[in-house]
C-alpha cells in the first residue's frame, strides 16, 4: 500500500495497563484477555486516512516493566507520537505518569504529540482514578486525553487517529520538518507530497546551478 506519510508512534506506561491490548485492538480489531509480557519492544502497523491522505502508523509497543526501562528509552527517539497509558483501576499507574512523561520528553523530539490514555474504561465498577483527574493532568502537561477500553474497543480507534490528526496538523503548520526522519515522520514513496518536494528541490537546483556557473567563471 502506498502512503503519503509514515508516523512512528510509541506506546508507553506501566506494565499491565493494556498497551499491547490497545495495539492489538487497533491493528487486528480483537481483544486477548491474557497477554504475554512484552519483551523490549513489539511492533504493529496500520494504514489510516486523514484528509484523504493515506498515513501509515508504525507503532512501537514498549515493555512496561521497570527493568526494561533503560532499553525501551532507546526506542523513544524519532517518534512523532506517543500514547501514554495508565489503568483507571490502578492508581499507582496514574501516579507514575510524571516519571514516564519526563522520560518521554527527555528522549524524544520536543514536537512529539503525546496522548494520555486512561485504559480499561469498561471496568467502571473498579475505577480508582476519576476521569476528571486524567483530564486535569493532561491539561496541566499539555497532553490530549481520552479514556479507552481495549476490550470493548471504545475510543481505541479515536486515540490512535486523533494523535495522527494532531501530528498532521503540526506538519501543515510547519512545526514538523518532514524531511528530518528524527521527527518520526517519513514521506511515503511516489506521492503528491514527494512530487512537490521534488519540484521544490528542482527549483533549488536551478539556483544552485547558476551559483555553480558563477563559480566557474
Amino acid at each position, binding site marked *: 500500500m*502506498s502512503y503519503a506519510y509514515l508516523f512512528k508512534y510509541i506506546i508507553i506506561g506501566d506494565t499491565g495497563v493494556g498497551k499491547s491490548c490497545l495495539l492489538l485492538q487497533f491493528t487486528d480489531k480483537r481483544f486477548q484477555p491474557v497477554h504475554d509480557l512484552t*519483551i*523490549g*519492544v513489539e*511492533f504493529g*502497523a496500520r494504514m489510516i486516512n486523514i484528509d484523504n491522505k493515506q498515513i501509515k502508523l*508504525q507503532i*512501537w509497543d514498549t515493555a512496561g516493566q521497570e*527493568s*526494561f526501562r*533503560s*532499553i525501551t528509552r*532507546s*526506542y523513544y*527517539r524519532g517518534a512523532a507520537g506517543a500514547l501514554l497509558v495508565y489503568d483507571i483501576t490502578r492508581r499507582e499507574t496514574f501516579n507514575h505518569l510524571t516519571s514516564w512523561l519526563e522520560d518521554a520528553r527527555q528522549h524524544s523530539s520536543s514536537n512529539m504529540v503525546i496522548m494520555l490514555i486512561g485504559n480499561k474504561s469498561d471496568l467502571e465498577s473498579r475505577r480508582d482514578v476519576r476521569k476528571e483527574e486524567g483530564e486535569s493532568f493532561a491539561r496541566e502537561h499539555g497532553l490530549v486525553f481520552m479514556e479507552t477500553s481495549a476490550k470493548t474497543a471504545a475510543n481505541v480507534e479515536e486515540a490512535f487517529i486523533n494523535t495522527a490528526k494532531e501530528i498532521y496538523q503540526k506538519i501543515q503548520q510547519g512545526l514538523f520538518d518532514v524531511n528530518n526522519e528524527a521527527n518520526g515522520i517519513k514521506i511515503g*514513496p*511516489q506521492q503528491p507530497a*514527494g512530487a512537490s518536494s*521534488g519540484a521544490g*528541490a*528542482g527549483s*533549488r*537546483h*536551478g539556483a*544552485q*546551478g*547558476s551559483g*555553480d*556557473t558563477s*563559480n*566557474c*567563471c
Partner: protein
Amino acid sequence: MSGITSDSVPAEVMAVSGSDLLASDTKQQDETIGISHESSQVEQRHDSHNTSHGQEEGTATLEQPLTEEHSSGERPENFTPECSESVNLDPEPESEGLDEQSSSDLGASPKESVWGTWGSWGKSLLSTASATVGHGLTTVKEKAGATLRIRNASSEGEQPAQAESTATETEEAPQKYSADDPPSSPSSGSRGVFSTITSAVQNTGKSVLTGGLDALEFIGKKTMNVLAESDPGFKKTKILMERTVSLSQLLREAKEKEKQRLAQQLSDERTAHYGLLFDEFQGLSHLEALEILSNESEAKIQSFLTSLNGAELEMVKNELIAIKEIFLPKESDDNEEDQEKKAADIGEEFVSMLTELLFELHVAATPDKLNKARKKAHDWLEETNFSTSLEMGGKNEEKPTEDDEGKKAETREGDNEAEEKKRKTVEDIYMLSIESLAEVTARCIEQLHKVAELILHGQEVEKPARDQAKVLTNLTSAMCNDVSSLSKKFSDSLTTIGSNQKAEVLTPMVSSVLLEGCNSTTYIQDAFQLLLPVLQVSHIQTASLKTQQ
C-alpha cells in the same frame, strides 16, 4: 562518528576478492563490480556509526578505495588518482542531489562546451541510474553529488595543465576508451581533443563512481548473484562481500523495491515482493530496533574505553577483541555437499536445537514465533509436494512407488480436495515461496533482536559473553542453514511443478527464490553482527559488577 571502521571482513580479504572478481569476467562486469564494491566501502564510511563495531583501527579500510581503483583499472595511472579522489567522500555538509549536478552541467555556459559534453553524458547515465533506483535521493547520493560538484569546480582550474601533462597518455587513450566512452565530440571542445578526452575520461569515471553509486551497487550485487549461479567457486567470495553490505543499504533497497512495486502495481498486481513482505512481517522494524541497540552499545563501549588507560585499557581491549573474533565469519572447510546435507538433516531438529541454544544463552527467549513461521512454511511445502507427487504419480504409471499408492488411496477419499491443490499454479507457489522466506527471515531477525534485548536486560545467572558469542554463532548458522534449505526446497518444488512451463517463465521465478534465499541469509548475518557490541557491553557490565563485589 567514531574513527573505527572495522568489519566482518578484513580489508585484505576484500581486496583479494575484489581483484579475483575483476580477473574473472568481462571488462564491463569488472567495472561494475569493482565500482559497486568500492561504493559500498564508501557508504560504510558514511554509515560507520551504524555499522561499525569492534576495536580495530580503520586505516586499512580507509585506504581501500584506492587499492580497489587500481585493480579495477586498465586506466593509465594519471587518471586513477582523479577517480579515487572523487570517491573520497569525507563528510560534507548536507547538500543537494545529483540531479542538481547534472542540471548545473547542462546549464553551463557555451565556453564550457567540453564540460557540457561529458555533463550530458553524465546526465544520461544519471537518469539511467535514477530510473533503476527510483527518485529517492539518499544521503550518500547527496553527498556524492556535492563532492562531484566540488571536484568539478576545482578540476576546472587544473584542466589546462593537466591536459598538457597527460598529453602522451591521452594519445593512447582514444583507442583504449572509445569502446565504452561516451560519444564525446572533440570538434565541439574549445580546448582541443586532448582536454576533451581527458576530461571525458576522468569525469566519466567520476560520474560513474559517484552518480551511479546506488544503481551500480544494486546492479553489482545482482550481477554477483547471477555469477554465483554459474560459478560455484565464486560463491564464497560473494558471501564474503555480501557481508559488508550495510543495513541502511538493506533498508534502502527494500524501499526501492517498494517503489518498483508501486510503479508496476497497475500492470502486474500479483508479483511477489520480498522486501515489502519482509517489512509487513515487521522484519525491518526489528532490524531498525536492533540497530538502535547496537549503536547505543557501541557508543557506551567507546565512552567506557576512553575512561580507561594503560594496562587496564589493553586488557579490556583484548577481551573485547576476543569476543569479536568469535563473531568473525569463519572459512569453513566443509564442501557444499556437506553443507547441504547438514541443512537437510537439521529439519525437525531445528526446533529443539533452537530452544536448546536459547536456553544455553541463559536468556528467557522463546522461539515460538519463529517456530510457527517455519512450521507454516514446511507444512505448506509438504502440501505442495504432496499434490505434485500425485500429479507425477499419475504421469508415471509404470513405476508407482509404495508411497504413491498410499497417497493415491487417500486421494480417492478426498478427490475434490486434491483437485483443488492440483490447481495451484506455478505463480501461486512462487508467491508463497517468497512470502515464506520473508516471514521466516523476519522471525529470525526478531529472534536475534529479542536476544539482544534480553542480554542487555541482564539475567541473574549469566554466561560469560564469550560463551554466549559462541552459542549465538551457532544459532545464526543454524538459522542461515535452515533458510537456505528452505529456499532450496522451494525452488526444487517450483522446478518440479513448473516442468511443463516455458523456461522464460520458470527460470526467473526459480532464480528469484534462490536469490531471496541468499539475501535472507545475508540479512540474518547482518543482524547477527549487530549483536557484537551488545555482547561486548554486557561483558563490560558483568566485569564491572564483579569488581564491585
